[in-house]
């Protein structure tokens, strides 16, 4: 086939959307920062010689390679062995070091759960676990989609659980994780990570929820990338004269129940919890339990999150629309509930 003929054939056949794993969840044209976790860890490690880095054959895909390049003698490659990864991190913490451990969220939460539970959480070891591809941030299929990681990690005593929204928050969360004595699980956005919160005069504090904007009609309580979406939803609904407040809850555990109750207790607002996670056992049910236990009943309560099913493989934008966690899908849902 000639070049011209190839081009013509390509033009005739629409290009399919790809499900290839992508390095970033940033939308086209969105402001980003490269590898915020890796750079923040390098910065922190300058003042904290006890910090070491460990990974299970995923340094390049969790931005830990930045740390490994800067501190080759403080980096341990454990191979594709997540149980060993967690056990070895426990042993290093036992000797007074502060391991930052990286892998994918699915492997830390599913494959190595017992090792995280027994060798790290049960002994309250000072291990920080940062996991890429949280929730639905890979189109690769159920093997790589960590829809249940928050529920699993939240259920584990001693474990602090963080779901940051953007590059700024990751940069700030890294030193906060180190300042906390004990195990921490952080969902990690890697590669070119969106930068959003710098426009909101925001500072991450472990265990604190922050209201990013106020609104009279809807309160969206969200974590992780869903806060980014919630802020876009709020802007979109402004045009329809719908006031949307956004309460960002980056620390899933311990949960800032005081702030959540104060915000959800304000009468007359639809309360929507939005999370990049199955609707079972994550932020939505944590907030619902908090409200019920305190006797706070909003005029309406809704959850936006992933369904209780094995998710499809496909392009992320397609899947986010399908499962209702894209900005457009959220706008449609919320309008329908008003």
């Amino acid at each position, binding site marked *: 086939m000639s070049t011209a003929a190839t081009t013509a054939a390509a033009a005739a056949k629409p290009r399919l959307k790809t499900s290839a794993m992508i390095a970033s969840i940033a939308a086209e044209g969105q402001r980003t920062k490269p590898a915020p976790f890796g750079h923040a860890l390098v910065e922190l490690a300058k003042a904290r010689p006890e910090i*070491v880095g460990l990974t299970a054959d995923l340094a390049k895909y969790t931005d830990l390679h930045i740390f490994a390049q800067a501190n080759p003698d403080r980096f*341990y490659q*454990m*191979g594709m*062995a997540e*149980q*060993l990864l*967690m*056990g*070895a*991190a*426990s*042993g*290093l*913490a*036992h*000797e*007074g*070091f502060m*391991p930052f451990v990286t892998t994918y969220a699915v492997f830390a939460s599913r494959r190595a759960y*017992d*090792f995280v539970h*027994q*060798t790290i959480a*049960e*002994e309250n070891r000072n291990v920080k676990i940062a996991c890429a591809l949280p929730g639905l941030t890979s189109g690769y299929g159920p093997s790589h989609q960590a829809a249940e990681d928050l529920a699993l990690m939240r259920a584990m005593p001693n474990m602090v659980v963080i779901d940051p929204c953007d590059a700024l928050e990751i940069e700030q969360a890294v030193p906060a994780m180190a300042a906390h004595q004990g195990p921490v699980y952080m969902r990690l956005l890697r590669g070119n990570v969106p930068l959003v919160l710098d426009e909101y005069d925001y500072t991450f504090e472990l265990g604190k929820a922050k209201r990013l904007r106020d609104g009279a009609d809807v309160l969206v309580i969200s974590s992780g990338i869903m806060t980014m979406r919630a802020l876009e939803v709020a802007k979109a609904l402004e045009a329809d004269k719908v006031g949307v407040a956004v309460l960002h809850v980056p620390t899933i555990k311990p949960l800032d129940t005081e702030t959540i109750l104060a915000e959800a207790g304000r009468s007359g607002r639809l309360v929507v919890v939005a999370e990049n996670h199955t609707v079972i056992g994550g932020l939505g049910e944590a907030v619902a339990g908090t409200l019920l236990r305190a006797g706070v009943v909003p005029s309406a309560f809704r959850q936006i999150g992933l369904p209780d099913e094995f998710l499809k493989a496909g392009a992320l934008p397609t899947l986010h629309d399908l499962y209702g966690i894209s900005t457009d899908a959220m706008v449609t849902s919320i309008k329908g509930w008003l």
Partner: protein
Amino acid sequence: MDTTQLGHNVPLTERAYRIRRNAVLMGEVQGQGYIGQALDIADVLAVSYFHAMRYRPEDPHWEGRDRFLLSNGHYAIALYAALIEAGIVPAEELETYGSDDSRLPMSGMAAYTPGMEMSGGSLGLGLSIAVGIALGLKRKASDNRVYTLFSDGELDEGSVWEAIMSAAHYKLDNLIGIVDVNNQQADGPSTQVMAFEPLVDKLEAFGWFVQRVDGNDMDAVVAAFDAARDHPEPKPRMIVCDTKMGKGVPFLEAREKNHFIRVDAHEWTLALDALDAGRTA
């Protein structure tokens, strides 16, 4: 404090006798337990605590100690017996074994017991933690060692082989593994539950310095611990110990189902008598 100071006037065979006796007395408290394992591993524990390891009984967290990891948490009764003999756990706590509020729970837990470096119970954890501790000790330029006791049944766990591979990769010559091969696990003989032989060949192929000894032959165990310490190659060291369940109490040795032993009330005295007979023999 080192071994020779602790044990210089007490023979290791006497230490092993006392460890067995402590274990039987604790078993009597509950009327049941992993007594067979405690009896089979007592000689190895005697060598660990009274010949090989550095520690301070009055300061279980002393930085200069050698670390001892009990990966097979159900052997806790055996380790408690040794910790009591070593003076790390007071002898009067023996009678609290497995009771409410005791520091000696049925399965070994780091937060409960002085001298317990890890929580076991879920099997196959110890060697992975040992890899991290060995790496940590090297980072600190410490000449201390990490000893890790695990069972032949734990060889079923894939994580054990992950750790075995990585210890060789990192040339952890400060890591000494001890496998108790008593060929008994929950569902029957270990070799029938999951074939693991030829174990020495496998471990050598994985890059370890390996010795296989009769784990109830005190002189052989001492020699193996010495050789593990002094081996010149930059390799992790494994001591494969073939042991006899119930060792020292003939009627328990002969018992077919001895993974978890129930002993009738009158039999505890018989067990202690049998140990006494062995002591004077």
